[in-house]
C-alpha cells in the first residue's frame, strides 16, 4: 500500500482488502447488497486489519439478521473512519444451529460490547470471547429470542401488516381474544408456577468487579467494605428508567454496570411487521425530544433503497426542522444538566420556555408538538407556510441568539458551576472512539467527527459552518460544546432560510404503499445525540425484512463504565447527564 490509509477511497479499500485476504474475504454479490462477507474463523484478524491498517477506527453498528429460509444468521458490521468518508460494511454468516456462534469483536472495538449483547438477547447469536454476554434488553430467564423470524409474539396476528382483520375486511377483534390467557402472554408448555424458580440477578452482580475478585484471598479484606448500590429504574436523575448497579468503595465508584430494557418497546420487531410508511411515526418515539432528526435518518435509509431523489425545497425544510430540533435538544440538555447538579427547576424552566417556541413551529407544520411524523420518502408531508417561515426567521435572527447569550452570561461564568465541571474527566479521544461514542461527547474529546461534514447527507454540503470541537474532554468542555453547537445550528439555519427555494415538497406522489426494491441500506444522520442510523433490509415485499435502529444513546452508554470508574458517586449523575441519553432510544 502506498497511499496513507485514511485517504483510500472505498473502492480502493475493497480492492486492497480482497487482495490482502483473498481466502476469506469475498464481496457480497447479492443484488442490492454491498460490502464483504468475511469467514467467521478469520473475523478478528480482518477486523484488526481494518482498524489498524485501513483506519476504520469507529465501529458504528453491530446487528444481526435472521435468514430463516436460507437457514443462516448474518451479523452485519458497519465501520467508519473518524477522519470522514463513507463507511464499510462487512458481514459474517453462521449456520443457524443451536447455538449460533460468532467470535466477538470486543477486543478490537470496545463499542461492540452492548450491541453484541443485544444481538445475543434478541437473536440468540452467541459471541464467543465476549466476557459478559448477558441479556441486555429483556430480563434473564425470558423465553426465546424475539427477533428470530420464527418467534411469534403473544398478540401475533399475521406476518405483515396491514392485517386482514382491520383491512380490507375490517372485522376487527381485540388482540386479547385470540390468546388463551387473554393477555400479552407467551408461556411455555406445561408451565407451572409451583415448581418455577425465578431467576436471580446474581449474574449481574457477579459481573461487577468485586465479585470476580472475591476468591482472591489476599484481597478479601481490602475489598471488605465495598458496597453495591442500585440506582433506578425509578430514580429522579437517571433520565428515565435506566438502572445502574454501582459498586462503591466509600464514595468512589470501583465498578459499574448499567441495566436497561425498562423501556424496551420492541421497535425492531414491530417495524418488521409494519409497512415502510407505518414505521415513520414509530421513529418519532425513539428519541422523543428529536422526532424530526429521527424521521430524517429513516427517510434517508429508505430513499437509498428506493433510489429516489428528494425535492429541493423539502431538503431545506428538513435541514431547518432538524437544526431547530438540535437547538431545542441542547437547550433542554443544559437545563437538565443543571437540574442534575442540584439546581432544581429554575434553569430548566428557562430552557423549556425556548423549547415551547420551537415546538409551536413543529405544531404549525406537522400538527403535533412532539411526535411530528413529518418526513415522507422523497420529501415532507406538508409545506411550510409563509407566516411560519417568518416566525422561524424571527426566532433564528432575534430571539434564540439573544437567549443563548443570556444563558451563557448567566451560567458559563458562574463560579459554582465552573468549579463543579472543570477538570473532571469524561472521555479522551482514544477512549471515545474505541467505545464508538459519537456526537457532542466525541467532539468535546477533540475528534471533529460530525456526519454533516464527515459524510455529508442532504444539502449540508452547501452550508458554511464549523464542526464544533473542544479538546479537554472534561465536563466543562462537554457542557460548553453544546453552546457551540447551538451557534453553528443557528448559522446553518440563517443560510438555509435565505436559500430555501420554492417548488414542490415531494418528488413522489403521496402514497400509502411504497415499492422498495430488494437490498440493504444504512441511513445515518448526525442527530443531536450522535450518529443515528437505520439499517433496513428489504426483500421486495411491502414490509422491511429487517429494520434495525442504531441508536446513539445506546451505543454511547457503552463508555459509561470507563467514564465512571474512580470518580465520586456524586459526579456519576452529572457524567451520565453529559452523555445526554434518552431512554426511548437506549431501549428502543
Amino acid at each position, binding site marked *: 500500500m502506498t497511499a496513507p490509509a485514511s485517504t483510500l477511497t472505498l473502492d480502493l479499500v475493497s480492492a486492497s482488502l480482497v487482495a490482502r485476504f483473498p481466502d476469506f474475504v469475498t464481496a457480497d454479490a447479492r443484488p442490492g447488497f454491498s460490502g464483504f462477507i468475511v469467514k467467521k474463523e478469520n473475523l478478528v484478524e480482518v477486523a484488526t486489519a481494518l482498524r489498524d491498517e485501513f483506519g476504520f477506527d469507529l465501529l458504528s453498528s453491530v446487528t444481526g439478521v435472521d435468514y430463516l429460509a436460507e437457514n443462516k444468521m448474518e451479523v452485519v458490521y458497519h465501520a467508519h473512519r473518524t477522519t470522514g468518508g463513507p463507511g464499510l460494511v462487512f458481514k459474517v454468516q453462521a449456520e443457524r444451529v443451536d447455538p449460533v456462534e460468532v467470535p466477538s469483536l470486543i477486543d478490537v472495538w470496545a463499542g461492540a460490547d452492548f450491541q453484541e449483547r443485544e444481538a445475543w438477547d434478541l437473536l440468540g447469536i452467541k459471541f464467543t470471547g465476549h466476557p459478559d454476554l448477558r441479556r441486555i*434488553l*429483556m430480563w434473564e*430467564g*425470558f*423465553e426465546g429470542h*424475539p427477533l428470530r423470524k420464527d*418467534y411469534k*409474539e*403473544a*398478540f*401475533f396476528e399475521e406476518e405483515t401488516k396491514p392485517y386482514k382483520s382491520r383491512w380490507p375486511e375490517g372485522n376487527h377483534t381485540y*388482540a386479547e381474544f385470540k390468546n*388463551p*390467557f387473554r*393477555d*400479552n*402472554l*407467551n*408461556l*411455555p*408448555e*406445561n*408451565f*407451572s*408456577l*409451583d415448581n*418455577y424458580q*425465578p*431467576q436471580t440477578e446474581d449474574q449481574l452482580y457477579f459481573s461487577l468487579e468485586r465479585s470476580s475478585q472475591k476468591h482472591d484471598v489476599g484481597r478479601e479484606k481490602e475489598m471488605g467494605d465495598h458496597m453495591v448500590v442500585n440506582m433506578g*429504574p*425509578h*430514580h*429522579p436523575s437517571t433520565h*428515565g*428508567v435506566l438502572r445502574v448497579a454501582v459498586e462503591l468503595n466509600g464514595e468512589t465508584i470501583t465498578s459499574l454496570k448499567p441495566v436497561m*430494557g*425498562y*423501556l*424496551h*418497546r*420492541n421497535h425492531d*420487531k*414491530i417495524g418488521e411487521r409494519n409497512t415502510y410508511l407505518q414505521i415513520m*411515526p*414509530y421513529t418519532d*418515539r425513539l428519541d*422523543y*425530544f428529536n422526532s424530526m432528526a429521527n424521521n430524517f435518518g429513516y427517510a434517508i435509509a429508505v430513499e437509498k433503497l428506493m433510489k429516489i431523489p428528494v425535492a429541493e425545497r423539502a431538503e431545506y425544510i428538513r435541514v431547518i426542522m432538524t437544526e431547530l430540533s438540535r437547538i431545542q435538544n441542547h437547550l433542554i440538555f443544559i437545563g437538565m444538566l443543571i437540574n442534575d447538579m442540584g439546581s432544581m427547576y429554575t434553569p*430548566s*424552566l428557562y430552557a*423549556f*420556555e425556548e*423549547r*415551547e417556541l420551537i*415546538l409551536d413551529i413543529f405544531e404549525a407544520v406537522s400538527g403535533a*408538538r*412532539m*411526535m411530528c411524523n413529518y418526513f415522507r420518502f422523497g420529501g415532507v408531508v406538508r409545506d411550510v407556510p409563509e407566516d411560519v417561515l417568518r416566525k422561524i426567521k424571527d426566532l433564528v435572527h432575534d430571539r434564540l441568539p439573544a437567549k443563548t447569550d443570556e444563558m451563557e452570561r448567566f451560567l458559563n461564568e458562574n463560579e459554582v458551576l465552573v468549579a463543579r465541571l472543570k477538570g473532571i474527566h469524561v472521555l479522551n479521544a482514544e477512549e471515545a472512539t474505541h467505545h464508538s461514542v459519537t456526537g457532542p461527547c466525541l467532539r468535546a474529546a477533540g475528534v471533529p467527527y460530525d456526519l454533516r461534514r464527515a459524510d455529508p447527507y442532504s444539502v449540508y454540503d452547501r452550508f458554511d459552518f464549523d464542526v464544533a470541537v473542544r479538546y479537554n474532554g472534561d465536563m466543562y468542555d462537554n457542557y460548553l460544546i453544546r453552546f457551540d453547537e447551538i451557534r453553528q445550528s443557528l448559522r446553518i439555519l440563517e443560510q438555509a432560510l435565505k436559500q430555501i427555494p420554492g417548488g414542490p415538497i415531494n418528488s413522489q406522489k403521496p402514497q400509502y404503499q411504497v415499492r422498495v426494491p430488494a437490498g440493504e441500506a444504512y441511513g445515518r444522520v448526525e442527530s443531536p445525540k450522535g450518529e443515528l442510523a437505520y439499517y433496513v433490509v428489504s426483500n421486495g415485499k411491502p414490509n422491511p425484512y429487517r429494520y434495525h435502529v442504531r441508536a446513539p444513546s445506546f451505543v454511547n452508554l457503552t463508555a459509561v463504565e470507563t467514564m465512571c470508574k474512580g470518580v465520586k458517586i456524586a459526579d456519576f449523575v452529572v457524567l451520565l447527564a453529559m452523555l445526554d441519553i434518552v*431512554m*426511548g432510544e437506549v431501549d428502543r
Partner: protein
Amino acid sequence: MEENKYEGLNLPNYNIPEDIQNVVSVTTIDRLYNWGRRWSVWPLMFGLACCAIEMIAAQASRYDMARFGMEVMRPTPRQADMMLVSGTVTKKMLPSIIRLYNQMPEPKYVVAMGACASSGGPFKEGYNVVAGIDKFLPVDVYIPGCPPTPQALIAGMIKLQEKIDKQSIKKVRWYEKGKVDSNYVPMPILGPDLIDVRRSAEFEAAAVKKEGVA
C-alpha cells in the same frame, strides 16, 4: 354532571354577610376534607417514556400545573398522592411500578396518561409491553393522546379533582375498618414471560389441560 361541579368551600344557599365572608365559612366535613385534598395533589415524580416529557412541559411555565396545586413532584412514593403513569409500561418495568404503588400511602390515585398507559398504544403488540396499566392497578382517570398535550393532561387532572370532590369521608376505602390493604397489588414475577400471580390457578389449569392432551 352539573351537580358535581366544584362550587368552592361554602355550602350553597347559606348567606354569609359580606363583611365576614373572608373569615367565616359554612361547610361540611366532606367539603372541607376534599377542598384541602383537591388543591394539593402531589404527583409522584416518575416518568416512563415520551409522555413524561409532556408532563414536564405541563409543569413548566407555559402551562403551569401549579395553578391546580399539583406542582410538588415527589420522587419518593411515600409522599405522593397520585401516580401519573406517563408512558409505556413494559413487562420489565412493571414490578418496579407495582412496588412504587404499594409503597404509596392512602389516599392514592392512578392516572393513566397517554395511549400506552391506557391500553398499550402503538406498542401494544410488542412482546415486552403490558397492554395497559389497568391490568394491574386501579386507574382513576384515563387521558387519551399520544402524547396528550399539556392541556389534555390538565383537563385530566381537573377530572381527578372532580372525582375527589365526590368522595365522602364516610365511605372512602382508606378509612374502612379491616380493609387497610384493600389496594395492595401482589408483585408479578418475571419468569419465561410476565406472570401475574393473581392468576396462578388459571395457569395451573392450562398446564394440566395441555398435559392431558399430550
